[in-house]
């Protein structure tokens, strides 16, 4: 039995559908009180999310937030997710009781395309006419709009200003208490009679073999004719859904070819047939319901004026690089105070334990392993939060969509397109959501290349490594009196990763065969003031993840590392470094010959091994090693320990600016994050690509560090 045909006691299913960037997730969050990510660019939601609510009539309701789509004819993977789900609904699987069609009121024409498709499904549709705060009051007759579309209701609202949600909920209650809708009326499209005649064999197949309503049969016939991707949704329909002729796909395929030929004779293009018919209907509706179409948008001119400067051919990139520089400089400047506070707090905690606890193995483990290792990482929390704060502000304001637009031309040259820009920019915070966001890319080849180069974008986990080494070895001087050298080095690391990512994208595009055509039509969202609640939520989420990582995997690694760095206990007769003779030391010594040409010693070697779990583990590893090595009962300052570490044989500093640069460049390229490779395996559905990624990134990291270190030495550094 189909779920929707069950008695009313069952959970009421509400599906949220709408164009990308129409505010679906914002409405989902308002309905469910959940806090999923919302932003001001298309394609933020790339997977289905669900939440439970209790309606005022006491009935439980499940709200499903689907990725944004412009139509039910899939053009990309995230749109395919929606199209597949809708195909299931048509066959009474997971069918929602009501669809909330989220519509951006400031762009009614384009948004109504999907709504008209949804009305064909035979499921009650309630329109959430969102973003009404951007439309002059009285310009849209929503009562007439409801009538024209033949839907349950149109609720004007603003998810940003949080009004209209109560009315939406009331409408949902009404629908939950009403009976099924009438499906007998015909599709309101004005289909020419000759087209209707040739369309008949396809509609007949749907009606007879699939038992579709007349309206749905015509809608689906138009869809499968427009795009082969829509037809392919039926490739497994015979086996996936009960009672369907297993040969239906072959039959549809054959009638489609026949139809396309006949349509060609009538001088109609099959690819735009559905769009032409629907937009004719939409134009008619909008002329009736919208008072003054040309003056609906209040912000367009403002946004366009800003775009003339921010996306200018030459000025645009200069502004972008300047903004990024300011952000990275702010990371250093604003975080300095809070970092000192956390550092002082951690040291006070360590000293308190040293004073109050009896000496012994557990005390050493807590002070040197746990506080030394995890504390060294927690110090970098303010920097991560500040970076995420600024990146989220850029996303929410709509600026990142402009960056994607500016990068489009350059990306086309390297075998990608602007659609890859947003996932790549997401990679600056973390590669994992970036890799998932690549689902918005329609071409498999371009998506794969984006996934492969994405870990080269310097994520926030690299920030502790960069800033530790920059703070310790790069002089805190300025160039020209106002450009900080430390900030500049940090920006260089980000630019280096990005630049090499593009070069490799171009190389990969020469070797990976083309599978599927690509297209890039990007909607420019209007500039808007970020929703600060959402920005702080993003910052909070990232901070929580960082602390969770520190409290779990980094803590565990620090504890295990403390053991292997402390045992076996070296006899008193052995002089010098105790850790060098431990298991960890032996492990580091084992890899030392391989990494010596890069300027790295055994301590860094241990860090390179442990940081495969997560890049920031390098910092906690070094902190633990120096803490264990330290024979005094005191807590070690890692930055000072690195600068003051000397080679016992030569008496010279063990690390210098050249080794620091070599190590930073190694981290720009190195494959040091197991979670990234796990997600690549999931997203590509194979082991081949994560293994390839580890190999190419490791070779690149080694080669680059080798060149930097050996080149530096050759130049006399």
């Amino acid at each position: 039995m189909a779920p929707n045909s069950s008695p009313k006691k069952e959970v009421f299913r509400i599906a949220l559908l709408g164009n990308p960037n129409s505010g679906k997730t914002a409405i989902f969050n308002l309905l469910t009180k959940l806090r999923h990510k919302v932003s001001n660019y298309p394609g933020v939601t790339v997977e289905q999310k669900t939440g439970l609510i209790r309606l005022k009539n006491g009935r439980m309701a499940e709200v499903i937030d689907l990725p944004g789509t412009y139509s039910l004819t899939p053009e990309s993977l995230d749109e395919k997710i929606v199209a597949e789900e809708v195909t299931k609904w048509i066959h009474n699987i997971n069918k929602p009781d009501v669809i909330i069609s989220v519509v951006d009121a400031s762009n009614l024409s384009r948004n109504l395309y999907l709504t008209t498709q949804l009305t064909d499904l035979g499921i009650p549709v309630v329109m959430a006419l969102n973003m009404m705060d951007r439309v002059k009051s009285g310009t849209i007759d929503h009562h007439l709009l409801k009538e024209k579309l033949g839907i349950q209701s149109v609720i004007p609202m603003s998810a940003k200003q949080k009004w209209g949600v109560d009315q939406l909920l009331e409408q949902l209650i009404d629908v939950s208490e009403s009976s099924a809708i009438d499906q007998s009326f015909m599709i309101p499209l004005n289909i020419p009679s000759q087209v209707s005649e040739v369309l008949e064999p396809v509609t007949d197949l749907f009606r007879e073999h699939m038992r579709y309503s007349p309206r749905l049969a015509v809608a689906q016939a138009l869809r499968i004719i427009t795009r082969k991707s829509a037809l392919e949704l039926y490739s497994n329909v015979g086996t996936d859904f009960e009672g369907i002729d297993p040969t239906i796909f072959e039959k549809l395929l054959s009638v489609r070819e026949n139809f396309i030929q006949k349509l060609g004779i009538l001088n109609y293009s099959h690819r735009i047939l559905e769009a032409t018919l629907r937009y004719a209907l939409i134009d008619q509706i909008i002329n009736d319901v919208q008072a003054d179409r040309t003056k609906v948008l209040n912000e367009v001119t403002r946004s366009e004026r800003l775009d003339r400067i921010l996306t200018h051919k030459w000025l645009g990139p200069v502004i972008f690089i300047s903004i990024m520089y300011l952000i990275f400089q702010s990371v250093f400047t604003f975080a300095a105070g809070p970092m000192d506070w956390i550092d002082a707090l951690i040291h006070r905690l360590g000293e308190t334990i040293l004073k109050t606890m009896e000496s012994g193995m557990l005390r050493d483990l807590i002070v040197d392993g746990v506080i030394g290792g995890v504390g060294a990482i927690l110090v970098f929390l303010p920097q991560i939060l500040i970076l995420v704060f600024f990146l989220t502000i850029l996303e929410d304001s709509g600026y990142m969509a402009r960056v994607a637009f500016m990068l489009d031309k350059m990306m086309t040259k390297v075998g990608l397109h602007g659609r890859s820009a947003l996932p790549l920019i997401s990679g600056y915070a973390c590669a994992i959501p970036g890799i998932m966001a690549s689902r918005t890319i329609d071409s498999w080849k371009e998506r794969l290349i984006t996934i492969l180069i994405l870990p080269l974008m310097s994520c926030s986990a690299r920030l502790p490594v960069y800033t530790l080494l920059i703070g310790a070895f790069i002089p805190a001087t300025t160039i020209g009196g106002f450009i900080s050298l430390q900030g500049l080095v940090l920006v260089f690391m980000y630019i280096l990763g990005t630049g090499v990512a593009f070069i490799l994208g171009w190389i990969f595009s020469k070797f990976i065969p083309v599978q599927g055509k690509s297209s890039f039509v990007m909607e420019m969202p209007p500039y808007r003031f970020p929703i600060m609640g959402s920005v702080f939520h993003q910052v909070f989420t990232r901070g929580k993840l960082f602390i969770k990582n520190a409290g779990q995997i980094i803590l565990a690694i620090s504890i295990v590392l403390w053991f292997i760095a402390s045992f076996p206990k070296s006899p008193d007769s052995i002089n010098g470094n105790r850790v060098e003779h431990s298991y960890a030391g032996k492990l580091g010594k084992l890899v030392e010959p391989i990494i010596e040409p890069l300027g790295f010693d055994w301590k860094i070697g241990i860090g390179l091994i442990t940081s495969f779990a997560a890049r920031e583990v390098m910092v906690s590893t070094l902190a633990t090693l120096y803490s264990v090595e330290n024979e005094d009962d005191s807590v070690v300052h890692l930055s000072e320990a690195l600068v003051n570490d000397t080679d016992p044989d030569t008496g010279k500093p063990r690390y210098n600016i050249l080794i620091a640069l070599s190590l930073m460049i190694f981290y720009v390229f190195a494959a040091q994050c197991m979670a990234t490779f796990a997600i690549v395996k999931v997203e590509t559905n194979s082991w081949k690509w994560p293994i390839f990624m580890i190999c190419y990134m490791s070779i690149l990291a080694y080669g680059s560090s080798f060149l930097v270190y050996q080149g530096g030495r050759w130049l006399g550094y």
Partner: protein
Amino acid sequence: MEKMMNIQEVIAAILGIIALIFIVKKLFTEFTRPQSSSKCDKCPVTKEFDNKTEF
């Protein structure tokens, strides 16, 4: 009795074992977790990439 581990050593050893088990488990789950579908975290994976649709 000198060789008997004191309480600090016992707790430290337990913590070490727990940490080691956690790391091994984490490694194992990262790479053997069932492939989640892009549709939802709990759904089984579909053949999204086997079926490289021409859109």
